[in-house]
């Protein structure tokens, strides 16, 4: 990426000094954070569509795009147990249980948890997932109740989600900024904060071919950035995000253009990393390397998805060791990612408060 291409974040003068890695770690607080986050470098994820059932229908839903929605769901617990054992044997240490709506098959979630203790479930939060499933639970929020009724055909959804997950250490609410709901987040935040819940941010990333009103443009990305930063400063105790997360997910270029997506769909290399180990299983337990990424059927050029960033930005350690602020920004991003995705990990204070351009 040429620095002159970055319009919305001016490049700062980083000087000509070539920093050694040991110099970047010299500050005790930075060293501490580095040691904290590197404990989790062993995480290797794959994702799994659990069923083709869902209890609501949302505009722009990733699951009901492309071929995967037609996979015949496999609800045999033994098949899932066997798959988890095989996954563990090939080095997978973290599972993301998603589409269409995992809470519809909670018996399968139990089986996965018994075999693979680290993971996360992406849910609409309408139906409670038993506490015996000790994964992180990401509850999708697409606006206030009026918007949820219009876009997701679900009545009083936020109230229902909070009733289900208030005080639950597994729960992280995920607010997806679309072009239409940017300022609604203030109303949602008041409710989230009043109930002492945790929230992180996602940016709507259009599925291939989607041209509807949720799709972002430059103005909506700029406004999303302003609002994210404002919320981040007002609700520090409730928001799991960092200034660099804001930069990475609201940049005029998507994650693939900025960082080079490392998922197999965009990465032909099988040498090391996600290109080697990541699989995206459909509900019938089949998988296709050519289509494998964390949010299949997303338009890659538009992808600013929080799940994608968690892997793609995190994997780019090497590019972020250029100077102290850039490295601190990366540490903040990884610290955020771990707090969102790993049970028991507590987010620290952000180390860099400036807006750092992606290297």
């Amino acid at each position, binding site marked *: 990426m040429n620095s002159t291409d970055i319009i919305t974040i001016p490049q700062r003068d980083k000087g000509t000094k070539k920093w050694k*890695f040991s110099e970047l770690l010299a500050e005790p607080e930075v060293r501490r954070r580095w040691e904290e986050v590197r404990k989790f470098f062993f995480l290797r994820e794959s994702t799994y569509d659990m069923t083709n059932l869902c209890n609501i229908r949302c505009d722009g839903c990733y699951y009901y795009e492309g071929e995967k929605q037609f996979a015949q769901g496999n609800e045999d617990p033994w098949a899932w147990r066997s798959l988890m054992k095989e996954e563990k044997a090939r*080095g997978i240490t973290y599972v993301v249980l998603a589409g269409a709506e995992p809470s519809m098959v909670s018996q399968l979630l139990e089986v996965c948890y018994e075999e693979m203790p680290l993971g996360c479930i992406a849910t609409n939060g309408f139906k409670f997932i038993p506490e015996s499933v000790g994964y992180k639970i990401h509850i999708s929020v697409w606006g206030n109740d009026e918007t949820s009724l219009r876009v997701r055909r679900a009545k009083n959804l936020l109230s229902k989600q909070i009733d289900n997950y208030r005080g639950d250490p597994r729960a992280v609410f995920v607010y997806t900024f679309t072009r239409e709901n940017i300022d609604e987040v203030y109303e949602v935040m008041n409710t989230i904060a009043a109930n002492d819940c945790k929230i992180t941010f996602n940016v709507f990333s259009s599925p291939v071919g989607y041209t509807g009103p949720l799709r972002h443009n430059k103005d909506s990305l700029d406004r999303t950035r302003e609002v994210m930063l404002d919320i981040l400063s007002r609700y520090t105790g409730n928001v799991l995000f960092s200034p660099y997360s804001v930069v990475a997910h609201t940049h005029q270029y998507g994650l693939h253009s900025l960082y080079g997506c490392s998922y197999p769909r965009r990465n032909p290399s099988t040498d*090391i990393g996600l290109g080697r180990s990541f699989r995206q299983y459909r509900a019938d337990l089949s998988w296709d390397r050519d289509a494998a990424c964390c949010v299949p059927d997303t338009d890659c050029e538009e992808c600013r998805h929080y799940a994608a960033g968690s892997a793609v930005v*995190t994997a780019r*350690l*090497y590019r972020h*060791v250029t100077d102290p602020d850039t490295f601190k920004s990366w540490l903040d991003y990884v610290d955020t990612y771990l707090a969102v995705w790993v049970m028991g990990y507590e987010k620290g204070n952000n180390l860099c408060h400036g807006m750092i351009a992606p290297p």
Partner: protein
Amino acid sequence: MLMSMNKKALIFRIAEIIILELKLEEITPETFDPDLDLVDELGVDSMDLATVVLVLQDEYGITIDEDDYPKLRNIRMIAEYIEQKQAA
């Protein structure tokens, strides 16, 4: 062909760095097979390798490009890579 003392020392030091940085407990620099495949046989992943690379860059004053990671499959290949970079 006999390995030079310099190469032996380099391999030993790389083994020390990998053991230290990846917190490996069941292996020592003396027992670390320089031809062991770090990815396939030791289970090193991209973040581990990036960490080791950063320390090697500091120690040997070289730059290791991300695109060169596939060339760093085992300790012997890393040692040869470092030698080439230092000679360039």
